[in-house]
């Protein structure tokens, strides 16, 4: 199931096809180093997948708690069922699995649209998830469906071609920073009060404050300067994103503008991380996008070369030896084993909803591989099976080595305890203890809940 036949010729055609005429044409359809869209798509998909497995699973237990939910859109509230914790785990794991699978294989463009719809549902179904970058990623996933495709990763990282959907992603980022800058024009930001409130006692700006003091800039004056400068910084990033669509055009000043843009974007988001703001992995997404968009293409080609080699090696796994015809039955057996493997791996996660996610992922893998096998033969089908197993193993690894399960169960336990479900809370905390990092056991909670349940039972029997 891969639609790359047209894309094989797109790169070559762009050299001989209709050249951009006016400025808008040049802006959107001028040649771009295709390593950028190729790397950006993979970076976002992989980070999104890991985000699903590590952060979002941890918080899935809150969905549907007490039967209470409000979706982001009224019409969705009216037609969609109240989400449940297991349902959210199911959808989140499936989304992460597909994102990872698509990053390391050649999904149909339509499949990317499906992923966008699925991902969007996982946050739109509840205002519990109000991370704005999740909304932004929904847009990016749609754009990825229209990114340039090539037959091999090596082609992707070494070519120049039109990539208007990639330009659209950059302009989308520019709009984000434009509005962020506008919102910082409020009096409380310009006066530095809001920033001072955010920084608080974190000490994040101590060295900058000492520098300011050396320049006789202290107290309210210092905060006013820094607060106001945030506006300029974001305007600068916005401008850089608009300009960098033409990064790979011959120009003396564009590389400097791009470098400036990257420094501004990276410094802004690293600063946000140092402040320990509760914004999920938003900063890491934007830092990665900035590095890919603004860096010289040559550097990106060098960095992505080993990734491209691995990607092509995976894609070549199914290629038979010349003159050797392998029995179709072998591929079908591998299909069954791989799809079954995905189901088993997911079930081992030991989180409610993981087993059904594994079944859904297994069905997807089996169906997509089956279609690929029928249309393109074993050479294309087999790499997809290996990719599926790799995606499932990565999913298991991310959940297993992170605190995702510990957090899922301890958050669930805390909520159930507050809402009076002591038996449910006890079960959740016992599970949390199974996955607790050293020194973070919830045994005290388990003991107090056992005592409370015994006391309640004693009162009941008396």
């Amino acid at each position, binding site marked *: 199931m891969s*639609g790359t*036949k*047209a*894309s094989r010729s*797109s790169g070559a*055609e*762009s050299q001989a096809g*209709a050249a951009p005429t006016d400025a*808008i044409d040049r802006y*959107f*359809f001028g040649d771009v180093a295709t390593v950028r869209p190729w790397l950006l798509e993979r970076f976002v998909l992989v980070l999104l997948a890991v985000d699903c497995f590590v952060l979002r699973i941890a*918080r899935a237990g*809150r969905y549907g*708690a*007490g039967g*209470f939910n*409000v*979706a*982001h859109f*009224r019409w969705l*509230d009216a037609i969609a069922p109240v989400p449940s914790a297991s349902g959210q785990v199911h959808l989140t794991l499936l989304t992460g699995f597909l994102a990872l699978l698509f990053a390391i294989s050649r999904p149909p*463009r*339509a499949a990317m649209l499906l992923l966008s719809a699925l991902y969007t549902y996982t946050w739109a179904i509840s*205002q*519990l998830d*109000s991370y*704005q970058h999740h*909304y932004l990623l929904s*847009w990016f996933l749609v754009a990825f*469906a*229209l990114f*340039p*495709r090539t037959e091999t990763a090596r082609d992707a990282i070494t070519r120049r071609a*039109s990539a*208007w*959907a990639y*330009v*659209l992603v950059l*302009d*989308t980022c520019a*709009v984000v920073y434009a*509005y*962020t800058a506008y*919102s*910082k024009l*409020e*009096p*409380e*930001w310009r006066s530095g*009060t*809001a920033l*001072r*409130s*955010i920084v608080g006692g974190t000490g994040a700006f101590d060295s900058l404050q000492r520098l300011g003091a050396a320049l006789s800039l202290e107290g309210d004056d210092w905060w006013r300067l820094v607060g106001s400068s945030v506006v300029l910084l974001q305007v600068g990033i916005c401008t850089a994103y608009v300009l960098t669509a033409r990064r790979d055009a011959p120009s003396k000043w564009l590389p400097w503008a791009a470098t400036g843009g990257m420094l501004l974007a990276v410094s802004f988001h690293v600063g946000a991380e140092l402040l320990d*703001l509760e*914004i999920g992995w938003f900063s890491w997404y934007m830092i990665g996008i900035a590095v890919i968009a603004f860096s010289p293409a040559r550097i990106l080609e060098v960095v992505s070369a080993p990734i491209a080699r691995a990607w092509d090696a995976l894609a070549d796994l199914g290629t038979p030896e010349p003159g050797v015809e392998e029995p179709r039955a072998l591929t079908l057996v591998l299909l069954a084993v791989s799809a079954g493997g995905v189901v088993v791996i997911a079930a081992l996660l030991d989180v409610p909803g993981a087993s059904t996610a594994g079944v859904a992922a297994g069905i997807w893998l089996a169906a997509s591989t089956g279609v690929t096998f029928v249309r393109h033969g074993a050479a294309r089908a087999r790499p997809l099976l290996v990719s599926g197993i790799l995606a499932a193993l990565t999913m298991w690894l991310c959940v297993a080595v992170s605190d995702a399960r510990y957090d899922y169960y301890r958050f669930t336990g*805390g*909520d159930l305890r*507050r*809402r009076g479900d002591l038996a449910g809370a006890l079960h959740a905390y016992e599970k949390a203890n199974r996955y607790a990092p050293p020194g973070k056991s919830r045994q005290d909670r388990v003991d107090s809940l056992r005592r409370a349940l015994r006391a309640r039972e004693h009162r009941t029997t008396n």
Partner: protein
Amino acid sequence: MERWLDELAAAQTPAARRNALVIAGLWLTIFATIPLRYYLGSDPSDERFAWRMFSAVRVQQCRVGASERVHGEERSLDLFTFVHTAWVTALERNREGAVQKLLALRCHEPGTEEVRLVRRCASAAGRAEPSIVYARDCASGTTKVEAQ
């Protein structure tokens, strides 16, 4: 559909380029227009989709308290005993949908005549903002909103 998407992505023909530009124009127009919902709307606390990360509104420190009148008797409500902590945070941020849903939910409890939610906030500068009081009459289903 796959072939149409391939042609659109490659944008090598005049028709494909025209379609691409239309899509790009619509995309950017919609994406840039959605945040105006905040600036042209009437709810300064609902900053969703407006790219107002860590605005002056977001850094306000807010608390909510709830009470209800059941069979003529006033009593306070511990929100944490029937909704998740994360929803209490949503109430503190004055999410209209969450507020209305909570008030409606409590009104479904037998004997409940009125439910009140009071939100108190301090600005980034530490200044107390006017409290917002939501009072829902369970019989009529109407909610009064007052700033105090």
